């Protein structure tokens, strides 16, 4: 039941996000590989724990060389056999733009993550173990992403963009009095595009 509520919450956010996007914002979609790892010690980890994320970003402050922008995103990841999770997050992005189409990108974010086990769970109730549906675990998800993007129309700063982001994030709390927090990284490959009402803003 709880899982269903989480799902509808997730769906509602998606709809709200899409409505907002329809106005004029870009859609940012990425696929990623999630890992439990210490940030910046590893890059391409196996096995692949797949994830998908969709979001948008909003114009805030922009000059010829830099762009500062808030963004929102929702996503799902599947880390067999440990957990699967859905999340919603807000980020503040900072891009350093170059003339040859490359954007150096960074994002600082915080989000809410709800995780579920990917295995059958046995809960201790009234002195014995029973196997009911997993109610999941609530987590805070601070994150830092670094990477680069390439504008497909390099002279247009609002061009569609392909990007690679190395996101490091913390899952907190993790296991109280045992493992206080868990460190993860997501390696994203994504695309920013304007499917609804693309208008050149420069």
């Amino acid at each position, binding site marked *: 039941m709880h899982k269903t509520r989480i799902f509808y919450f997730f769906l509602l956010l998606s709809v709200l996000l899409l409505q907002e996007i329809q106005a004029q914002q870009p859609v940012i979609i990425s696929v990623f590989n999630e890992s439990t790892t*210490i940030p910046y010690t590893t890059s391409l980890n196996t096995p692949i724990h797949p994830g998908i994320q969709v979001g948008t970003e909003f114009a805030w402050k922009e000059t010829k060389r830099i762009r500062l922008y808030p963004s929102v995103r929702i996503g799902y990841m599947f880390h067999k056999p440990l957990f699967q999770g859905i999340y919603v997050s807000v980020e503040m992005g900072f891009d350093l733009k170059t003339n040859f189409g490359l954007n150096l990108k960074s994002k600082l974010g915080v989000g809410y993550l709800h995780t579920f*086990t*990917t295995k*059958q769970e*046995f*809960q*201790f109730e009234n002195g014995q173990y029973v196997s009911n549906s997993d109610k999941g675990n609530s987590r805070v998800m601070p994150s830092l992403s670094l990477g680069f993007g390439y504008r497909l129309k390099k002279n247009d700063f609002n061009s569609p963009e392909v990007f690679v982001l190395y996101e490091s994030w913390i899952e907190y709390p993790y*296991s109280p009095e045992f493992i206080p927090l868990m460190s993860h990284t997501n390696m994203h490959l994504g695309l920013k595009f304007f499917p609804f009402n693309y208008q050149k803003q420069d």
Partner: protein
Amino acid sequence: MKLRNLFIVLFFLGCEQEPIYEDSYFACISTIQDNNVNAPGSQSYESTLQNMINSGIPGAMLTVHNENGYSSYAKGYADLASKVALQPCHITRVGSTVKTFTSVSILLLQESGKLNIDDPISNYLSREQIKDIENASKVTIRQLLQHSSGIYNYIQNLQFQTASLNDLTKIWQPEELLDYARGKDAYFSPGTNVRYSNTNYILLGMIIDEVTQRPFYEFFEEQIFRPLGMEFTEFAAINHVPKGIIRGYIDLYSNLNLIDTTYYSGWDYFTADGGLISNTYDLNIFLTNLFHGKLLSESSMEEFTNWSSPNESDHDGFPTYYGLGIFKVDTDYGPAYLHSGDAIGYFASMVYFPKQDITISWAVNGNYGRLDKYSQSTEAMESIFKAILK
């Protein structure tokens, strides 16, 4: 609707149910007298196990050796999904208790003149094997055995911990584990202190391999398991998850919501710091025979129980002294010689009380989070000792 359907499919596909086994899958036949109600003290022993089960331990087994011989008990479940009751003849993972077997094997090799424990380990291991492991080029075998080498414990490396969580079913080779100790500062200069390090026992297993020219676990089998008639004991390298092994569970999020981790102990299948599969009956046979002088010579036993204490004692637990692959703790019932061990989802301990000539061994198929408090904390151990020795 397509998006919604996609997520529904993802969540339902994402959750895997555990297989249901028939009782016959876990069938075990032995001469062990299960839940021997006629043995003196048996009610107290059973009550101790039941208290563990009532607290959330999935299954617990216990063997006691005293003047009446061996008696074994079990409560709870071997498999929560199939609701199969745990029996004393079931097999389980006993983790680091193997370190005592590794130590005994090294001392047996010394007795047969194959090595000297005061030799530097560089006499037996190549430069490549110990490369970048600080202290390794100057420590002796004895210092590895006694944890006085100062060598970094690879399990403490956060990169290893997250890597093992990232790939829970990975089967690790000893060299891969040693890589997590390479380039790490030693805890202290060799011989100046003692600190537990699994890396020491990986290296000892490699020394046994080199000296005997075969895997260390074959030496265990030939020199210890078979001579003592340990019919329930084997090493995980040969069969990682043997038929009938009880399911292991962890309380990863400290909320007594358990998941099955039977297949997640792949980092000690091939190393002499863990990887033993046994039960409390066989562990009890081993420790009782060891301290009754049936395995090692008198001089080896003197070396084995030459205690060394850490420079700073841990105030939370029993006062602890380090022998060679064995510990001495001071309890309310006098000194006790012990070794315990965790695997992912399993815990076991074996303890010998020399004053009373009583051996106690217990094992559970759940650990981490809140479970450890009920099976392996100082409080839990005191409760077990009290039930048996009072």
